[in-house]
């Protein structure tokens, strides 16, 4: 089976969709000539030409607004925001326009828009380039939020996002771009809103997404040494969220640790704990524990920054606490 990096898998998904559907077009800052800031769109201009792959000015709000208008014009735009931090500059267009229009206009306008946005910390980029904003965007009904963790899921979910008739914010973790993994040829789109149990276990469920799902898997392997059998659930979609899969797992293991890269207040973890309490409270043997990004802006200093991001050791320690409780 072919092994690709997360970056190559995304590039392959874009290439296949551009080739498959003439209504798909790609645009954003430096996506064409430059090949994308993170090189995800490399080679696509050469293959599909400037009509299909367009560079834009540094105008994030207008980039998303353009995507909105293209969708109204019957096309399936894929816009890249150079980083999710810049999505805040386009927040109005994403939230007040894109997310609400199908509803607000009485179901007249499907919005098949995909907004790709790399993010996450770990590269010493300081407080304005290291955000994990998944919780912010998952707040809004009307928007779908996807966060793949592996090359296979990155490709399959991007195919699905582009073909979906609803707006999708497609988050990519900058720390995963070079990660390698098997990506079957002819891979089909994965349905949005479905989580995967990526490792079966008996004693505790570790719930993660994006890079955090990878770290949860590493933590689960480390926990084997303590004879703790951890199940790992990779959420893949943060909105809609696959409550059935998560709740079924936690109801079975009766213990859970939720891992988020974002800040803890009003975050993905808080939402998961509340949702799980609604669904499986009486099955729980111990309180659910959250492992979150540190509640401070991302510092530049290397070790300090690392200390702010969940790691396998913190996740494993949380799991031990939950199992010992």
């Amino acid at each position, binding site marked *: 089976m072919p092994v690709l990096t997360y970056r190559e898998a995304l590039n392959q998904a874009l290439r296949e969709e551009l080739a498959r559907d003439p209504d798909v*077009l790609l645009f954003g800052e430096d996506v064409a000539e430059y090949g994308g800031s993170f090189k995800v769109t490399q080679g696509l201009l050469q293959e599909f030409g400037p*009509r299909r792959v367009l560079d*834009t*000015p540094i*105008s994030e*709000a*207008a*980039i*998303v*607004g*353009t*995507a*909105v*208008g*293209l*969708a*109204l*014009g*019957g*096309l399936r*735009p894929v816009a890249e925001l150079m980083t999710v931090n810049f999505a805040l500059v386009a927040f*109005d*267009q994403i939230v*007040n*326009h894109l997310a609400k*229009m*199908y*509803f*607000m*206009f*009485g*179901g*007249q*306008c*499907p919005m098949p828009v995909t907004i790709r946005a790399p993010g996450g910390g770990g590269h010493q980029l300081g407080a304005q380039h290291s955000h994990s904003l998944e919780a912010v965007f998952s707040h809004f*009904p*009307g928007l*779908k939020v996807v966060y793949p963790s592996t090359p296979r899921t990155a490709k399959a979910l991007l195919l699905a996002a582009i073909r*979906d*008739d*609803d707006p999708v914010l497609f988050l990519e973790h900058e720390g995963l771009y070079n990660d390698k993994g098997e990506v079957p040829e002819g891979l089909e789109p994965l349905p949005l*809103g479905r989580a995967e149990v990526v490792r079966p276990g008996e004693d505790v469920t570790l719930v993660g997404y994006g890079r955090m799902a990878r770290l949860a898997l590493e933590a689960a392997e480390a926990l084997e040494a303590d004879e703790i059998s951890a199940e790992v659930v990779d959420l893949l979609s943060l909105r*809609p969220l696959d409550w059935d899969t998560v709740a079924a797992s936690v109801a079975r293991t009766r213990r859970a640790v939720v891992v988020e890269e974002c800040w803890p207040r009003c975050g993905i973890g808080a939402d998961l704990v509340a949702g799980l309490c609604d669904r499986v409270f009486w099955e729980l043997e111990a309180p659910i524990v959250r492992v979150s990004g540190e509640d401070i802006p991302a510092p530049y200093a290397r070790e300090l920054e690392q200390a702010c991001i969940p790691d396998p050791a913190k996740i494993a320690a949380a799991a031990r606490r939950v199992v010992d409780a």
Partner: protein
Amino acid sequence: MNRQEVLRAYRQMRLARAFETKVAELYQKGRMGGFSHLYTGEEAVAVGALWPLRPDDHVLGSYRDHVYLLVRGTDPGAVMAELYGHSDGCCKGLGGSMHLYDRERNFHGGYAIVAGECPVAVGLGLSVKYREGDQVVVCFFGDGATNQGVYHEALNMAGLWKLPIVFVCENNEYAIGTSVERSSAERNLARKASVYGMPAEAVDGMDFFKMVSAAERAVARARRGEGPTFIEARCYRYRGHSMSDPATYRSKEEVEFWRGRDVLEKLRGQIRHDFEVPDEEFDGLDAEVREAIEAAVAVAEAGRELSLEEARKLVYVRP
């Protein structure tokens, strides 16, 4: 323009005026809620700017949007029902006054974030260019929009990519209660737009024929693939910004001055003179419009709101 055409223009303007007058009345009676921003006084801008359009052209507006739909041919009953929040409204009662939409007539909203529609127009323009069509996008906004960042981003991209867009700025001198002098470093809004690679001109928005001729030039240019045009329509709204605004920031004299240049009266005078249209014919049109408005109100009064269950189904195409 021939006799039939000018009478059609008169009827459109009369319908717009009568609709807004009725909305004010019903709003005051509590038949509808929210904000209601009326177009009264500015009718020549919408009717004139949309005059050269074909049904397959695209139109976007801001929150002061009732009249665009009427001009595009949306059933006044569907617009009125929307203001009532009823399920047979043009957005099933989910949009309301500021978020009207009519897919069938290529009216793409209805946006209540100032200048929010400007980049959306860029996307629509790009979709036309992408498909190598000759449709035109007309994008309306007020003078206040020209101070928003995204407005400048949108004009820059439209000019850069030579998109088939007509930007129509309704300069009614006030952004809510703040006058242009107090909000824009450049008072000449056409000049302010002229640096983005498009012709920009100021037009007397109180003169229907001047609006039409400016719009015809802009639309023809866009259809030829020559890119966007900016039209600053200098106009005036008779009422406050919305129904909740008594407009105390304007003098009585100022309002009287503009009302003295009323577009509807002026057009009627011109038509009567140039085409020798008798008063009875105008009266007939006025009666027809009155009936249409009464019918619209009847539709709205008879409707109902969507249930929560029905509304939930409209958040996603595929949940």
